[in-house]
C-alpha cells in the first residue's frame, strides 16, 4: 500500500507520458488515503476524537430535527422560561431570553461549521495556489508573492481578523473572509516549502523535459504531492478556526443576534455567571473547547499516520 505512494513520488506516470485518466488519478489518491484511513483506525484516540467531530458535524447539519426547541435555536424567545437551570425538559437549561441552551448549541454548531469549513476551504485554495506558483516559478514571482504573504503574516492573526471584520461589518460571511485573510499565508508558506523540495525531483524534471506545460505540471504533479500535509493541517485548523470564530463573535464581530453562535452565547451568558447562571456560557465554552480539541487531536493523529516514523506508535 505504501509503495503506491512512493510510486507517485517518483512520477512513473509522468515518465510514462502523463496520460492517466482522472479516475486513475483519484483512485491513486484514494489508495494513499485509504492506506492512511487504515492506519488511522488503529488509533483509539483518533476514533474517539473522530466520533466527537462527527457528532459536531451531524449536530450542525441535522440541528432542526434533533431538538424539540428548534424555534429557540433560531432565536425565538420564550420569556416565561428565562434562566432555567439544567433539568428534565431543558437538559442544558435556558438562556436569558428563555431559549433552550442545547438547541442554541446545536444551531450554533451550524455557524461554527460553516465558518470552519469556509475558512479552511478558502485558505487552502488561496494558500495552495500562491504557494505552488511561488515555489514552482521562483525568482521574482516568488519574491513578490512571498513578500505579500509576509505582509499578512506580520499582523497577529486575531488582530488582523478583528480589523477586517470590523471594517466589513458583522455577519457570518464576513467572519469567514476576516479569518481567511489571516489564515491563508500559513498554507502558502507550507506549500511553497514542499514545492521547493519537489521541483528538483526527477519526475518533475522529466515532466518538464517532455514539454509538459507549467500549468499541467503544477496541477498534476506538484499539487497532489503536497496535499497530504495540507490536509493534516486543514483538519487541525478546523478546531482552531472554531476557536477564532468564537473569539470574533465574543467581541461582537460575529453573526448578528439572534443567530445562534457559540461566541455570542459565551459573551451574553458570561453576564450571568457571577450571579449563578453558569450554564449558558459554561456549556457554550465547553462546546468550543471540545470541538477545538477534537480537531486538533485528529490533526495530530493524522500527522502521526502520515509519518512512517511515528505510524507504528499510534495509540
Amino acid at each position, binding site marked *: 500500500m505504501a509503495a503506491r505512494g512512493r510510486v507517485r513520488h517518483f512520477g512513473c506516470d509522468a515518465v510514462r507520458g502523463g496520460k492517466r485518466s482522472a479516475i486513475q488519478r483519484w483512485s491513486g489518491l484514494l489508495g494513499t488515503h485509504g492506506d492512511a484511513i487504515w492506519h488511522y483506525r488503529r488509533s483509539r484516540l483518533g476514533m474517539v476524537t473522530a466520533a466527537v467531530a462527527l457528532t459536531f458535524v451531524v449536530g450542525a447539519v441535522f440541528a432542526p430535527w434533533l431538538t424539540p426547541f428548534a424555534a429557540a435555536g433560531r432565536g425565538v424567545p420564550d420569556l416565561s422560561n428565562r434562566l432555567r437551570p439544567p433539568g428534565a425538559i431543558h437538559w442544558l437549561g435556558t438562556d436569558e431570553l428563555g431559549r433552550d441552551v442545547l438547541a442554541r448549541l446545536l444551531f450554533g454548531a451550524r455557524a461554527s461549521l460553516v465558518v470552519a469549513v469556509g475558512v479552511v476551504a478558502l485558505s487552502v485554495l488561496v494558500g495552495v495556489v500562491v504557494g505552488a506558483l511561488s515555489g514552482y516559478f521562483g525568482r521574482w514571482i516568488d519574491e513578490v508573492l512571498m513578500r505579500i504573504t509576509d505582509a499578512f503574516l506580520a499582523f497577529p492573526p486575531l488582530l488582523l481578523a478583528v480589523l477586517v471584520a470590523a471594517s466589513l461589518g458583522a455577519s457570518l460571511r464576513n467572519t469567514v473572509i476576516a479569518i481567511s485573510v489571516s489564515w491563508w499565508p500559513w498554507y502558502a508558506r507550507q506549500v511553497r516549502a514542499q514545492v521547493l523540495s519537489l521541483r528538483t525531483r526527477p519526475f518533475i524534471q522529466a515532466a518538464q523535459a517532455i514539454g509538459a506545460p507549467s500549468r499541467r505540471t503544477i496541477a498534476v504533479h506538484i499539487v497532489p504531492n503536497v496535499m497530504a500535509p495540507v490536509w493534516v493541517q486543514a483538519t487541525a485548523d478546523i478546531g482552531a478556526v472554531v476557536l477564532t470564530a468564537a473569539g470574533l463573535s465574543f467581541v461582537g464581530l460575529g453573526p448578528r*443576534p*439572534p443567530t445562534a453562535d457559540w461566541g455570542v452565547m459565551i459573551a451574553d451568558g458570561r453576564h450571568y455567571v*457571577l450571579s449563578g447562571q453558569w450554564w449558558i456560557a459554561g456549556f457554550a465554552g465547553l462546546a468550543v473547547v471540545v470541538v477545538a480539541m477534537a480537531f486538533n487531536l485528529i490533526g495530530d493523529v493524522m500527522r502521526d499516520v502520515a509519518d512512517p516514523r511515528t505510524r507504528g506508535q499510534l495509540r
Partner: protein
Amino acid sequence: MSEIKRLVFGGLLCVATVAVPPLTACSRDADGSGAANAAVEPGAAGQETAAEFAPEPGGEFEEPADSGSAQEDQPGEPPAAEPAVAPTTAVASEGSRENPRDGPGEHFVYANPHVIGDLDPSSAFSSEHIVLQNVYETLTRLTDHDGTTTEQLSGVLAESWTANDDATVWTFTLREGVTFHDGTALTPQAVRDSLHRTIDLGLGAAFILAPIEFMEAVDDRTIRFDLSYPAPLDLIMSANFGVYVISPNAVTQDNAWFNAGNAAGTGPYMLESHDPAVSTRLVRYDDYWGGWSEGQVATVDIRLTEDPVLAQQLIRNSDAHYTFNLPFDVYDSLADRSGVDVVIGPSMISLFGLLNTRRLSPEVREALVLSFPYDEITASLYGGRAVRSRGIVPQAMWGSHPELEIPRTDLEAASRLLDDAGMTDISIIYSYDAGTIEQQQIGEVWKAGLATIGVDLVLEPLTFDARWAKAKADPDGAQDVFVMFWFPTFVSPYDFLYSVFHTEEEPFFNLGYFSNGEFDTLIDEADTLSGTDRYGAIELFRRAQEILVDEHAGVFMLDVPQAQAIRSEFRGFVSNPAYSQVVRFYELHRR
C-alpha cells in the same frame, strides 16, 4: 429590597446629610407660589405658602439662622406628604462587612461604564456630569420632586434668590466664603462669565439658557438676570449641564485646556488627572466651603469599566465601590451578597426608539409602534420593576402625560397596516448600543414578534459614538430605529421634548429627524409658561406629546428603573433621579 430602603430612607437621610454643608432650601410649585403641596389648585397662587423659605415671585428666601441640613431644616415642609413617587432613595443597609483591603476608607472607586469624553463644563452633554457635579457647583440643586408640579430646590452657590411676579427678573445672592480651587473668590462676575461661556459656545445644553437676556452683578454678592420670557431660572440653574460656575482664571480657557485634565470649580473635589481611556481621579479640596469631617471620601477614582462583568467582579470584591448599568437579573444576586447594597430608585430615564421619519412612512411607523412587545419587556426583562412609558417624558417628572392614549401590542393590526400600505417582507434596521445587553434583548424579542408578520428587524450593534455619528451624517441612509436613553438635563419636559424632537437643521439628538411646526410652537410656548404658569405649561407639553404619539415619532418603550450597586462600607448615598448616576462623594462616609 428597595421597599426596605425606602422605609428607612427618612432616618438614613438625616445621617447622610450630617456632613452636607448648610444649603438653602426652597420649593417651587406649579405657579411659583412656593407651596410645596402638590395638591395646590391651578390659579391658587399666593393662597398657600407652605414653605417658609420657599421662593415666591416677588418674595425673597433667606437661609435660616441655623441650617444644619437642607432636608432637615425646612420648617414649612408638609410633614406627612407622601410623594407620588419617592423622590430619592438612600442606602440604609446595616451590618456591612468590613473588607480589610479597603484601607482607611477615604478612597472611593466608581466603576463607570461610559467614557468621560468632554470635561469642558460649558459644552459637556453626556455622562460627564458624574465628574462635573463633584468638581464644579451650580447655583441651585434639586433635592426633591414629587412627579407633579412641585420640586424642592436647595441653594448651593446661591444662598437665596428672588424672582419678580412674572419670573422675568431673577436675583441670586451668593454664598459667602466660597473659593475656587485656584484660590480665587466666588463673585457674581464669575457666575456671569461662566454662563456667558456656555451661551457663547452654544453647545450641549446651551439651549436651557436661552431665556437669559442680560446678566448683571448688582453688588459683590448679588447677580441679577433679566429674561426675555418667563422661565423657572432657579430650576434651570440646578441642571446637570451648562450651568457650572468656573473660576475667572479658567473661564477664558478653551475646550482643549479642560480636556487636558485641568479644572477650577468650587466643588468639594479637584480634578487630579484625567485619561478618558483609563480613569478620572479626584482629590478633595481642603478649603471647600462646606468643610470636612472624619471618614469622608478624600480621593476618588472614576475608572472606565465598560464591561459589566468586570464591574460586577470589582464591586463583589470591593475593588470598586459603586457601579450601575449591570443586567437587571444580576442585581438580585448582588443584593443577596453581604457587603453590597442594591439601590433601585425612582427614575427619570426614558428608553425609546426614534423612528426615522425620512425612511419610514407613517403606516410603517404605526405598525412598528403597534408591534412592540411593551408588556413582555417590562414584566420579564426588568423583573416587573420597569413601567411602560407614556410618551417620552418619564412619569416621575412633572409634565408627563398619565392619560396619554398609548397603543397595546397588536401584531394583527400592525400586519394589516403593512398589507394595506403594500409593505410586505420589509427589513427594518434597529440600531442599538453594542454591549448594552437589555437593548439587544429588547431587539431580539421585538424581532421575533415582527418576524411573524413578515418584517425582518435587523439588529445593528455599534458603539453609541459610532452609530450617533452615522445617524447624524446620513439621515436617509442610516438606521430605521435609533434606540437611546434620555435622562434629564434639568427637570423639565422641555429638555426631553426639545432635545429629541424639536426641528433641527443639522441632526444632533433628533435622530428620528422629526419635524412638526405645531409641536415646536407648543413646546416653545410651554417653556415660556414653565416659570409662571406650571399648569398651563403642562397642558401644552401634554398636547405636544399627543402629537408625537399621533405622528408615530417613536416607540416609547419604558421608564428605566435606576438600579445601582454600592458597597455598604459607605453610607450616605442618595439616589436622586434628577442627577442620574451621580454619586456625591462628599456626602459619603465610611461606616
